[in-house]
């Protein structure tokens, strides 16, 4: 499950297992505590004292809430948004009270006023964060994301479609069977391109689409295109955003194979390492052809989609290594729901 809900709705809880979300919550809450204390304090000592007071109640409550939410995240995401957010508030309030209770039990001098202050602070900060994540989701969400994704999808090059159709036409009289399977590949590729791309797909699916795409490219480029697949260690059930690998491979063909007269090799390595899925893509580098448009935009698009789905846990790096161009993409390893 990504930051985006799989359901087509505007409001959804953030993914509490996402590193980006966790970091945003921790920083947000502590920053709010600092501000709240600073407003009341008149001297530096008071500020330190105030921070300490808040910290002893707030930090255990905050960390406890984050741990609880971490484990409850899958269950919460199945709830309607209202029930989910109510649960979040309930967890925050009860843990704050529990944390205050612990302090009182440890015979610390803390009155009921401190309890009210702490709970009020917790509720306010939670409400603020809920609003923030809501805005963030909306900024990335339905209408806007749809428009962006559509722009991205339109990016599959018309050049490729028309050349592929032309290649299929050339086969019809001589090799009807190959023409048939090529049209099937083309149909499936375009079905994928036009599908709803908000939900994740399995890695096995994405690899299959990429294979179909490469079959078509092979048809028109023949022996100029050589592909080395290193996918033995790829976890087929890992969930990935759809059409993330295919555009990268399309880029590799467009920039690495088409500008060359000599045959070139595209290497596609996919493997998992711990809780990460790695994709390494290598293609020949043609420095003199870097004026071919589109590369930067395509990569920016992929980066944006990685961020939409995985926040800071999805990364993409690219660079020239010797005579090759290399892309290294890392995503969190999410398993398909059983």
């Amino acid at each position, binding site marked *: 499950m990504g930051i985006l809900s799989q359901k087509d709705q505007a409001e959804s809880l953030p993914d509490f297992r996402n590193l980006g979300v966790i970091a945003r919550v921790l920083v947000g809450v502590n920053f709010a505590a600092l501000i709240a204390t600073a407003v009341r304090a008149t001297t530096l000592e008071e500020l330190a004292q105030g921070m300490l007071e808040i910290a002893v109640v707030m930090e255990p409550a905050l960390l406890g809430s984050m741990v609880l939410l971490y484990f409850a995240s899958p269950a919460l995401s199945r709830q309607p948004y209202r029930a989910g957010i109510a649960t979040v508030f309930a967890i925050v309030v009860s843990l704050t009270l529990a944390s205050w209770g612990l302090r009182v039990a440890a015979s610390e001098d803390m009155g009921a006023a401190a309890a009210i202050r702490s709970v009020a602070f917790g509720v306010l900060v939670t409400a603020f964060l809920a609003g923030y994540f809501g805005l963030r989701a909306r900024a990335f969400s339905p209408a806007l994301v749809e428009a962006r994704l559509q722009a991205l999808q339109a990016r599959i*090059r*018309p*050049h490729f*479609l*028309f*050349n592929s*159709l*032309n*290649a299929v*036409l*050339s*086969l019809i*009289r*001589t090799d009807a069977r190959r023409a048939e399977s090529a049209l099937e590949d083309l149909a499936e590729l375009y079905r994928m391109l036009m599908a709803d791309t908000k939900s994740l797909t399995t890695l096995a699916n994405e690899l299959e689409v990429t294979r179909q795409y490469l079959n078509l490219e092979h*048809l*028109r*480029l*023949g022996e*100029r295109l050589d592909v080395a697949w290193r996918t033995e260690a790829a976890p087929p059930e890992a969930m990935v955003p759809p059409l993330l690998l295919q555009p990268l491979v399309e880029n590799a063909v467009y920039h690495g194979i*088409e*500008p*060359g*007269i000599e045959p070139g090799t595209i290497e596609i390595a996919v493997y998992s390492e711990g809780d990460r899925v790695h994709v390494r893509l290598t293609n020949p580098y043609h420095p*003199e052809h870097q*004026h071919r448009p589109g590369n930067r935009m395509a990569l920016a698009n992929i980066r944006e989609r990685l961020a939409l789905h995985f926040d800071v846990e999805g990364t993409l790096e690219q660079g020239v290594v010797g005579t090759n161009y290399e892309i290294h993409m890392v995503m969190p390893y999410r398993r398909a729901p059983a």
Partner: protein
Amino acid sequence: MNDAPLRIFIVDDEAPARSRLRELLGDLSAELPNVVVGEAANGQEGLARLPDTAPDVALVDIQMPQMSGMEFARHLARLERPPAVVFVTAHDQYAVEAFEVNAIDYLLKPVRAQRLAGALAKAAASGPLDREALARASHGPRRYLSVTERGRILLVPVAVVLYMKAELKYVTLRTPEREYLVEESLTSLEREFVALFVRVHRNCLVARRAIKGFERVTDGDGEGAGWAVLVEGCEAALPVSRRQWPAVRSLTSA
């Protein structure tokens, strides 16, 4: 119009695209007698093979590796009897716009037999493309300069040219190995290759990457001392005109 079949040469980097054109030409042979005299998978191969086959029309794909179809057509124009050219493209917004503006005929892939027949008839009737229109429609600088020697087209990669010097009707290209004469104007060469060459004198452009240094020289005309640019890979010391000196000098300090 004579009865001899139209001689056609095909240049496309995708084998299926070439065989599709052959098929279509076969279908058309009753209404438009034609014969495919040769084909090539890229511009360089095309320039090497085409002159011997003496075609009437060349069908040329735009997007090809190393040398675009447009550049291929420009080099082709050096032949004594260049064929007419019909461009074919799958989807190249830029080229299509440029063709429209410059009234150059083109076909879109997948190509229809009737459109192909029409374009061939028109091209055969109107003959070779206008060189100027072709140059205007081109996008970006060429990668090669071409010269004809004994009926063949020689390609000189722009990347190996050290300097270009205007001499009467011709421009001399100097590479580390030898010199070539091309029939182009230094002014248009300067405009096209401004990113790679710098003008050092009214009659001379030097490759920016080949500038080794400068030396002080005394002018033969007795006009006093001036500067000359030393060029990597050859012995030449090319005089820098007083007007160009500030611009040229700033290149090396940068």
